[in-house]
C-alpha cells in the first residue's frame, strides 16, 4: 500500500504559498485541524482564500489567521461567534462569500466528485441567488451552484493509517470528509496514526486515495465553545 506518512506538520505544509485557496475542516471548533492552523500561523502565509464552515472564535482556530490578517477571503456559512470576523466583514476589510451550509457542503463534495455544477433550492429568491442561474424542476425553483476545489485541504480525523485511510469521531466529522476529496493536496492530521491494515476496510470514512500526506498531531486542545451540562 502506498505510504502517505510525513514526519510532521512542517513537512506536510512546506509548500503552502501566499495567495493559495485552502479548505479547513471543522464545525465551530469541533474537528478543526489544530496543528495545521498553528503551522499556517507560524509560516505567516498571506492573501489566503479560506473555505471553512465557520472561522473559529476570536482567539482560536481560523480566528487567529483573521487576527493576523493572513486571510484575504473567507467562504463560509456562519459568522456567528466571531466578533473579529464580523467586524472585518462589515468594514469591508475581508472579502466574504456566505453560502448556505448545505450548499457549501455540496459544492465541496462536487469539487471532489468531478461535478462542476448542480441545482439546489437553498437560497432561491434571496441575496444568495443574485447573479446565479435559476431553473424550475417539477414546479419548484432551484439555483445552479458550482463546485469548489482547493490547493490544499486540511482535515482532522480521529484515527488514520499510513495508507491515508481516515476515521472520524462523533460530530467532529462534519466537513472533513468532503474537504478531503477536494484538495489538490489533502493533508490529514490524526490523533492516532496506525499501520495500514489495522483499520477495518468496511469502516473507513475517507479512503486513502484522497489523502496525499498524513501525520499524527502533536497535541489537541479541543476547545469547547458551549460547555453545556446537566446535573447527574
Amino acid at each position: 500500500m502506498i505510504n502517505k506518512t510525513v514526519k510532521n506538520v512542517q513537512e506536510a505544509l512546506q509548500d503552502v504559498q501566499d495567495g493559495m485557496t485552502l479548505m479547513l475542516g471543522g464545525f465551530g471548533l469541533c474537528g478543526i485541524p489544530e496543528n495545521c492552523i498553528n503551522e499556517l500561523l507560524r509560516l505567516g502565509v498571506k492573501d489566503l482564500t479560506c473555505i471553512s464552515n465557520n472561522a473559529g472564535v476570536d482567539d482560536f482556530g481560523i480566528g487567529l489567521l483573521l487576527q493576523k490578517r493572513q486571510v484575504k477571503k473567507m467562504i463560509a456559512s456562519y459568522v456567528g461567534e466571531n466578533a473579529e470576523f464580523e467586524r472585518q466583514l462589515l468594514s469591508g476589510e475581508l472579502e466574504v462569500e456566505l453560502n448556505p451550509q448545505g450548499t457549501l457542503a455540496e459544492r465541496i463534495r462536487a469539487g471532489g466528485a468531478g461535478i462542476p455544477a448542480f441545482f439546489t433550492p437553498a437560497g432561491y429568491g434571496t441575496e444568495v441567488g443574485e447573479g446565479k442561474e435559476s431553473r424550475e424542476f417539477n414546479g419548484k425553483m432551484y439555483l445552479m451552484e458550482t463546485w469548489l476545489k482547493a490547493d490544499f485541504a486540511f482535515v482532522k480525523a480521529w484515527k488514520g493509517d499510513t495508507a491515508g485511510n481516515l476515521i472520524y469521531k462523533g460530530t467532529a466529522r462534519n466537513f472533513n470528509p468532503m474537504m478531503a476529496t477536494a484538495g489538490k493536496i489533502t493533508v490529514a492530521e490524526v490523533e492516532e496514526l496506525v499501520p495500514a491494515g489495522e483499520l477495518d476496510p468496511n469502516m473507513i470514512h475517507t479512503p486513502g486515495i484522497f489523502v496525499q500526506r498524513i501525520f499524527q498531531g502533536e497535541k489537541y486542545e479541543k476547545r469547547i465553545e458551549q460547555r453545556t451540562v446537566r446535573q447527574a
Partner: protein
Amino acid sequence: MALDKNQIAKRIAQEVKNGMYVNLGIGIPTLVANYIPHGIEVVLQSENGLLGMGPFPTEDQVDADLINAGKQTITTLPGSSIFSSADSFGMIRGEHVDLTILGAMEVSEEGDIANWKIPGKMVKGMGGAMDLVASAKNIIVAMQHTARDGSSKLLKECTLPITGLKCVKKIVTDLCVMEVTDKGFKLLERAPGVSVEDIQKATEGTLIVEGDIPEVQL
C-alpha cells in the same frame, strides 16, 4: 400575559407528533426538546451531522467531539447515527426531515422569513437555515411578536434580507399562535390574557380573525 421563551417552546412541542424527525434551530427552538410529551417518540436531527440527539451531558460525559448545531455539548441516544455535513444536508434537502423549528427576525404574511442579516449592522450568516427553509415539509417559527421599539416583526413584506420564500407554515410568538394562509396570518390561539386587539396592534401584516380565539393551553 405574554408567553416567555419556555412557554413558547412548550406550545411548539404540542406540534410534534409521534414518529417525526425534527430539526431544532438555535435559541428557543432548542428548548422545545425539553417539552416533548412522554410517549411521543421523535428523533432530533442536528445539521452538523447527527440523528438521535440526546440531552446535555453530565460533567463526566462531556465530549468535545460531540456537539449540536449551536456548538453545545450533547449526548447521543441509543439508535443514533453520525454522518458528514454533505450527507446531513442531503437528508434535509431530500425532504427526509419532517419538521423544522427555527427562530426569525421577521416573517411576512406570505410566509417569507428573514433571520440571517441586518445590512450594515449584523451578519450572523445563514448557516443551515436557507437549506432548511427551502426543503422542509413543515416549518414552525418561534419568535417575539415585536422588536424592542414595539415595531411589528410580522409584516406584509419582510424588510430584512430574506432567508426563504413562502415557507413558514405556523408561528408561535409571545402573543399568539398563527397559521400562514393564502390570505395572511390566521390567528389560532392567544397567549393567556392577551386580547385580539393587542395582537392586531402588534401585527403589521394582514391578520385573519375568525370566530372566538381560544387561549393557548400549556
